[in-house]
């Protein structure tokens, strides 16, 4: 029983991390129809910022990490402007090219070896409740994840700009015709999504304290899969999709026999294919959404 609860707790922790990344991807997709592969490099940038500020006060490091990712996210927004009229294929490959470029800049700058970040490492200590060991970072992940999801839900639900973002996500052209300023909404989405990248980067930096050029890339891949599996057309479904991927990953790795654990990815992505076949518009989208079904 305690083992099951332990798995559940770990699953929720990884799930909330992926959910935040999925939300970051979903926010931008909503207003621009752009899947940003380079989102991982924002997370990586947060990690490297923490690395370069090693030894400085924690608050300063946190603020600087957020500033760097938001700035980088804004630069990306500017660079991606020509893509607003491009075909989905070109968009996808271009953001990948940017991701590839940034990863290799990191390789050139820092090398592939990976360096220890040293950020709030004490959060990796665990405390025990009724036989279940919970690391502080698990608790922090869940709380921070919850707080940010709630904050963004509030922003989208209760503020003007949030309303405009939702309108743009639902039907960009009509929203523009009704006076929603496209660039403003897109810029705002990139700011939020950049800030989220910093949060994800910081929480990851505690758990996997090695800054490498692919630090964020391997978080964004499952998050992105989660976004599509959950359902791209709505922010909530995309976020839940991210959560589910993280949760299921942990569940599977605890369920699989020890010699089968290396095939975790095969099982996980096999499930992804099945879900896509059964519910191509997303697990958490009810009925037929706008997407064509051919």
């Amino acid at each position, binding site marked *: 029983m305690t083992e099951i609860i332990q798995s559940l707790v770990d699953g929720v922790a990884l799930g909330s991390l992926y959910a935040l990344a999925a939300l970051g991807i979903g926010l931008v997709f909503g207003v621009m129809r752009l899947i940003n592969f380079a989102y991982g490099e924002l997370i990586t940038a947060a990690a490297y910022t923490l690395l370069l500020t090693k030894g400085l006060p924690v608050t300063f490091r946190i603020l600087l990490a957020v500033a760097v990712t938001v700035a980088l996210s804004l630069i990306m927004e500017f660079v991606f402007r020509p893509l607003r009229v*491009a075909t989905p*294929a*070109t968009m996808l490959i271009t953001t*990948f090219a*940017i991701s590839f470029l940034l990863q290799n800049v990191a390789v050139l700058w820092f090398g592939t070896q990976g360096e220890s970040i040293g950020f709030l490492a004490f959060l990796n200590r665990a405390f025990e409740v009724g036989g279940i060991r919970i690391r502080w970072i698990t608790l922090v992940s869940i709380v921070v994840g919850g707080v940010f999801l709630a904050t963004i839900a509030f922003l989208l639900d209760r503020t003007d700009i949030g309303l405009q973002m939702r309108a743009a996500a639902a039907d960009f052209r009509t929203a523009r015709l009704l006076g929603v300023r496209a660039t403003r909404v897109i810029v705002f989405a990139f700011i939020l999504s950049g800030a989220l990248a910093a949060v994800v980067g910081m929480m990851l930096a505690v758990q996997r304290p090695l800054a490498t050029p692919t630090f964020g890339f391997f978080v964004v891949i499952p998050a992105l899969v989660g976004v599509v599996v959950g359902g791209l057309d709505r922010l909530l479904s995309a976020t839940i999709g991210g959560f589910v991927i993280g949760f299921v990953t942990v569940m599977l790795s605890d369920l699989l026999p020890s010699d089968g654990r290396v095939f975790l990815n*095969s099982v996980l*992505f096999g499930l*992804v294919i099945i879900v896509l076949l059964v519910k*191509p518009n997303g697990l958490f989208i009810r009925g037929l959404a706008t997407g064509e079904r051919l």
Partner: protein
Amino acid sequence: MSIRRAWELIGPALLVVGVALVGSVTSGSMEFQFRVVLVTASLVVALHVFVGNSGVISFGHVSFVALGAMSAGLATTPVEIKSRSMSELFPVLADLQLSNLESLGLAAVLGGAYAFVVGVPIMRLSGLQAGIATFAVIIITNNVFRNWDRIGSAARALGPIPETTGFVQATVGLLLAIVVAYFYQATRHARMLRAAREDPAAAQSSGVNIYRQRLLAFTISGAMAGLSGGLLAHLFGSITTEVVFLDLTFITLAMLVVGGIGSLWGAVVGALSIAGLNSFLAEAEREVTLVGLDLDLPSGTRLVVLGIIMAAVLLFRPSGLTSGRELSWPLARRGRTAPGG
């Protein structure tokens, strides 16, 4: 066949022969780089057969390359080496011994068969869903090859594989890919598929079975990708699962998009230019003399420069270098360009 139509085949083929001729007079590592370019281009042409005609992005094609490379490699690695270093292999694989050409045939057949099996469910999907599903295929393929030591060398390098992909084999392989792509493009199957790319609803209501046409293109393209994999294994002389994974997936897709999705000419131009640039930069990292100018780049610059150029082309010329058009007959009257694909 009018000269204008034939030119769409002859033009790319001439370019390839030209590149091969230039390459064949070089030597050493430069010569090797030219062969890498030719084999990579054959993979991009394979990718074009599906992606160009259907308009659906496939992240999964390197799975077929991987299967082709691993099977061709395994079939030509000496039996005594296999029994020594890969003791867990299934007996049938441990005893398998094929010639160079047979192993390439095997790679193509397996690539096509795998694409068909995977395509049966996945070709029902469109757009991003199809993209993610094919992405799942490459992840699974890599995961299995990397960890299952009964079908290969798992995480270690497979080899030594006879290095039989010389200039002739690399060039013939690419020309074969171009010919297959050209003749497939001219069939009514490909026409129906392109109709579905332009307007799925209209195509469907004119009686096009989109699923079937996609599956056919995916299978042909998978067989071609398998063959490229075989060529690749015989080029490098050893192969690891990392070589045929995400980097190759994205770089070949980028070549296709840089050239211009939708035309064979675009696939060939994109592949030759980006792969050529890649190879040139790889040489430049080891110092190269270009028109009396000594170039010596710090290692690692190659991928950064490549990334910048790819991103720049995609951002400022999103329809690619050729705008997705076929090569038009140079003596045609001005202002008449054949519409692409």
